[in-house]
């Protein structure tokens, strides 16, 4: 594996559309559930061990070479919120564009052709990792990291939170990200039957409400 390729893929500046999404942080801030760095840490931890684990395992499975179309169905089944399904597909389409430009491969072309409106983002990310010569742990790490870095960046913008505090939150979560990535890759090796289906119902509910807000800063 190429460690440098992993850095390129995991970079928050990788142009795959993530900057416009808060990962559920915007409604949490509005509801007063995130007010400071401590709240942010709790929010990120919850997201990481639920939606994050599920997404990381999907990405790891795609990186391993499991059928991406079946994984896309598995992702649908694990995403009860229609708003989050639409978001995942939109981000998947955007990830696909960046991935095809960065690490073109027949597998990416095939998935792009089969899902022109976008497959679920973790599946595309996993396949992008595979095309970059990366493995399932790498893909899972990427997803685990973006599961928490997205909300952290958003909260810096929404609350004018001190960026050093937000980054410290991410640093403290590193051991847990490693653990989630490890579990996700292990589950992926067990095949479709082993893929986790952990979810965060409150994130699903608030995502639905957020999608209907007339005025908002983030797309999700």
């Amino acid at each position: 594996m190429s460690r440098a390729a992993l850095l390129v893929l995991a970079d928050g500046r990788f142009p795959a559309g993530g900057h416009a999404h808060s990962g559920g942080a915007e409604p949490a801030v509005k509801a007063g559930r995130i007010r400071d760095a401590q709240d942010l840490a709790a929010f990120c931890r919850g997201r990481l061990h639920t939606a994050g684990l599920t997404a990381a395992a999907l990405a790891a499975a795609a990186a391993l070479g499991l059928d991406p179309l079946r994984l896309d169905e598995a992702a649908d089944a694990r995403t009860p919120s229609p708003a989050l399904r639409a978001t995942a597909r939109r981000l998947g389409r955007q990830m696909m564009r960046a991935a095809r430009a960065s690490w073109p491969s027949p597998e990416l072309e095939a998935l792009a052709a089969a899902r022109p409106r976008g497959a679920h983002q973790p599946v595309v990310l996993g396949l992008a990792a595979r095309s970059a010569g990366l493995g399932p742990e790498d893909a899972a790490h990427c997803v685990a990291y973006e599961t928490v870095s997205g909300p952290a960046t958003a909260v810096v913008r929404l609350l004018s939170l001190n960026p050093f505090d937000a980054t410290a939150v991410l640093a403290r979560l590193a051991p847990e990200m490693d653990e989630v990535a490890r579990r996700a890759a292990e589950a992926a090796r067990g095949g479709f039957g082993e893929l986790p289906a952990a979810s965060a119902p409150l994130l699903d509910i608030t995502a639905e409400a957020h999608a209907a807000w007339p005025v908002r800063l983030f797309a999700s």
Partner: protein
Amino acid sequence: MHIDHSHEGPAAVSADATRPDGRRRALRVGLGGPVGSGKTATVAALCRALRTELSIAVVTNDIYTREDAEFLLRNAVLPPERIQAVETGACPHTAIRDDISANLEAVEDLEEAVGPLDLILVESGGDNLTATFSKGLVDAQIFVIDVAGGDDIPRKGGPGVTTADLLVINKTDLAPYVGSDLDRMARDAAAQRGELPVVFTSLKGEDGVGPVVDWLREQLAGWVA
């Protein structure tokens, strides 16, 4: 890995100047500039002036509302299926420069839904003087400032004022009321921009957008030539 292979099939980044069938794709023009300088008003006027002769679509990048898109809809500048709003996550310049994926997607969707198009106008959310469009998103860009924002803006320069393909200095009708010196603005702009064109507009006046239409016709002629 296949990183060095040339692309086949549909363009991955849709920067190609031709469609898959070999025809020239739509000319994409970005409009940037500070909040309230008249970007949406310019887009609306351009659509009114050109919509009978060209197939046009618009992408708006509102910062936190859909107001620009709704203004264009309310004023029936174009049918609704020709207007798409992109959400920018509190960073309008990121969406037009550093990570253009959502905008490219909107461009592709418009082309798919109502194409073939001749012209796509992409309006950036009002931003600061450093905002510029990526060449991966647009073929040419217009920077719109106004006389009421201060007549020292051309002198301050910045990437928008200095490098845009066209600088529009709008709301000249307000110059007497805000004490802006148009000659000074013209001199400063010329000093910053060298050969690059500058036009003064007042969109409140009859055919106020005329100078921008003339410039756009030249761009279109060059594009399809």
